[in-house]
C-alpha cells in the first residue's frame, strides 16, 4: 500500500471521526447562557478534524502533497503480529499472571521483528527472555512493589 493511499484512507477515517465527535458534542450541548458547556470543546476539535480532513483529502487526491514511500506488506505483517501477540498476552494474564507468560511473549515479539526458526537462535532468545523476565520481576515486583497479577505459582 502506498503512503499516498494511506494518506487518503486516513483523511476519510478522520473525517468520519470528526463527524462522530461533532454529533456527540451536539448531544452534550454546545452553549448555555453562562458560556461554553461540555460539548463546546469537543465540537471545536471535531469540526477542526472534520473540515481539515476534507482539505487533506482534496490535497492528497489532487497531489498538492504526495506522501512518499509505501507501507510494505512485510512491515504491516510485523505490526499486525505485534498487536496479535500483545492481545494474546493480555488475554492470558488473568489466568497465568504477568510474569509466567512473559518469556514466551518476548520470544514471539522478537519473531515478529525477525523471523528465524533455527533451534540455536530460538534457544538463546528464550534464555535471554527468561533472564529479562526475572529482571523485570525483581525491578517491578520486588523493588518497585507494583501490584502485579500473580500466576498459578504465585508469581
Amino acid at each position: 500500500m502506498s503512503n499516498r493511499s494511506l494518506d487518503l484512507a486516513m483523511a476519510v477515517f478522520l473525517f468520519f471521526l470528526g463527524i462522530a465527535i461533532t454529533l456527540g458534542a451536539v448531544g452534550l450541548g454546545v452553549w448555555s447562557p453562562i458560556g461554553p458547556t461540555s460539548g463546546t470543546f469537543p465540537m471545536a476539535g471535531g469540526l477542526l478534524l472534520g473540515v481539515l480532513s476534507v482539505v487533506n483529502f482534496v490535497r492528497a487526491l489532487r497531489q498538492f502533497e504526495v506522501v512518499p514511500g509505501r507501507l510494505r506488506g512485510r512491515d504491516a505483517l510485523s505490526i499486525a503480529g505485534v498487536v496479535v501477540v500483545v492481545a494474546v498476552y493480555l488475554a492470558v494474564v488473568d489466568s497465568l499472571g504477568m510474569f509466567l507468560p512473559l518469556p514466551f511473549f518476548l520470544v514471539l515479539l522478537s519473531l515478529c521483528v525477525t523471523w528465524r526458526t533455527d533451534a540455536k537462535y530460538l534457544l538463546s532468545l528464550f534464555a535471554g527472555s527468561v533472564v529479562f523476565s526475572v529482571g523485570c520481576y525483581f525491578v517491578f515486583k520486588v523493588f518497585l512493589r507494583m501490584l502485579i497479577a500473580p500466576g498459578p505459582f504465585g508469581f
Partner: protein
Amino acid sequence: MSTLQLLFDGLAQAANLPNFLATMVGVLIGLAVGALPALGPSAGVAILLPAIVNLNPTVAIAGLAGVYYGAMYGGGVTSILIGVPGDSASMMTCLDGYPLAKRGEAGRALGMTVYSSFFGGLIALVLMTFLSREIASQALAFGTAEMAALMVLGLCMVTVLGGENRYKGFASLGLGLWIGSIGIDPIDGNARYTLGSMELLDGIDFIVVIIGLYGLAQMLEALAETVEVGDKRPTYSFNSLLPNFGDILLSKWVILVSSLIGFFVGCIPGTGATAATIFSYAAAKRMSKTPEKFGTGMIEGVAGPEAANNATSYAAMIPLFTLGIPSSATSAVMLGGLMMLGLQPGPLLFRDHPDFIWTLIGTFYIGNVVLVFLTIALVPALAALVFVRMAILFPVVVGIVMFGVFSLESQMFDIAMSIVLGVFGYLLSKAKYPLLPVLLGVILGPYLEQNIRRSMIASAGSLDIYTHSPLAMTILIVAALIVILPVVFAKIKANKRAVETLAP
C-alpha cells in the same frame, strides 16, 4: 534573594546524593538513547515516565532532563563513528563528522562534539538562569484570560511551525483536543465519549497517550528501518579525545554563534533542535574562509550543530518552566512528567516551588559537566549500541513499556490502549500527520478548556474578560497572524510563480 544566590543554593542541593545519582542515571540512559537509532529523546523520556511516578519530583525531573540532554550528546557519537545519526538533531553532525572519521580523525571529531556540546550547554544554561526568573516574574501578572491566550498561542505556534503541512497539524490538534476531552467533564459532570466503558470515565491518562504515540509509535517505525553500517569501524585513540585547543580556538566563534542560535531557536515553540542544527551549520559555513570544503570533514561543521543542539535542549526548558508551554516534543513529554508529579509548569512554579526549580537548574549544570567525562569514557560502548538488533531491542522496550503503563493504575486496559495508540500513531506518522499537536491537545486541552470555561462562567458567559484585556487580545491577534500569514504568503508566492510562468 539574588539570582546568583539562588543558583548557588540550587547547585548545593543538586550535589546531594539522590539528585546527583538521578542526574547520573538520567544522562547515562540519555547517552544510550541518543546512540540507539531506534529511539529519540522524546521516545526515551516517554518510555521512562512511569518509572518516576513514585519518586521525589526533583529527583524525577532531574533524571528525565538528564535523559533529554544526554541524548543530545549520545546522538553525535554514532553520527561521527558510523555515519548513523542517533536522532534527527544529529543529522548535520554526520555531514562533516563522518568524513573526518573516515579520514582517520574520529577522535578529533568526537572530542569536538563533546566540548562544543559542553560550551553550547553552558552558554544556554547561563542565559536560562538569568532570563527564566525574569520571564516568570513578568508572567506572574497574567490572569486566566492571558494564560488561556498564551496556551492558544503556544498551540498555534507548535502546530504551524512544527510540521510540513499545517492542515494536517491542525487536524492532529483537533484529534488531541478530542482525546483530552474523553471522560467525566470536571465542570458539568457529564460523561463524554466513554461508550459506556467504566475505564474511560476517568479519561485516557495522558501518560498512556505519550507512551503510545511517542514511545511505541517510534519503535514501530524503527521496525521498518534498516540501519546501513559499514563493516570497517573508524579507529581512534583515547588521547585523541582529549581537548584539542587548536580546534577549540579555531571554532570559538562558530560555537558561540551556534549556541546563541540554538538557544533562541529552542525558546520558540515548534521549531526544535533539528532546525537549530541546520541554521547553525549554515552559519558555520558562512563564517568559514573555506565554505566549499564543508561536507568533506571540516571541524567547524561538527562544532556548530553540536553546540546548537545542546543549547536547544536547555533553552526548551524556559518556555516550559516559565509559561507552561512546551517548545518541542521532548519538552511536551516532560510537561506530562511534571503534571504527573503534581507540578503545574508556569510562572507560579518559580514563586511556589523555588527549591525545586533552582535545584533542577543546578542539576543541569552538574549534568553538563558530568557528560563531558561520561561521553569520553563511554565512546566505545555508545558506538557498539548502534549494532543492537531490533529483534532484541524491540521486545525489551515493549516489555518495559507494558510494565510501566500497568504501574500507573494497575489496569490491563491501559496496556491495550497504549498499543492501540502506538499503532494509530505509527499510521498517522506514515501519512505525515505530526504527533506533537495531538500530544499538546491531550495535555494542554483540558487546562485550556477549564481556563476558558471558568473565566466565562465568572463573567456570566460574556467574552468581555478577553476583549477587555489588551495583553490577551494582543496574544490572540499574534496567534491568529501565525495561522493566517503563512497561508497569505503561500498564496502570494503561488501567484508570483504563476505570473512568472505565464510571462514570455
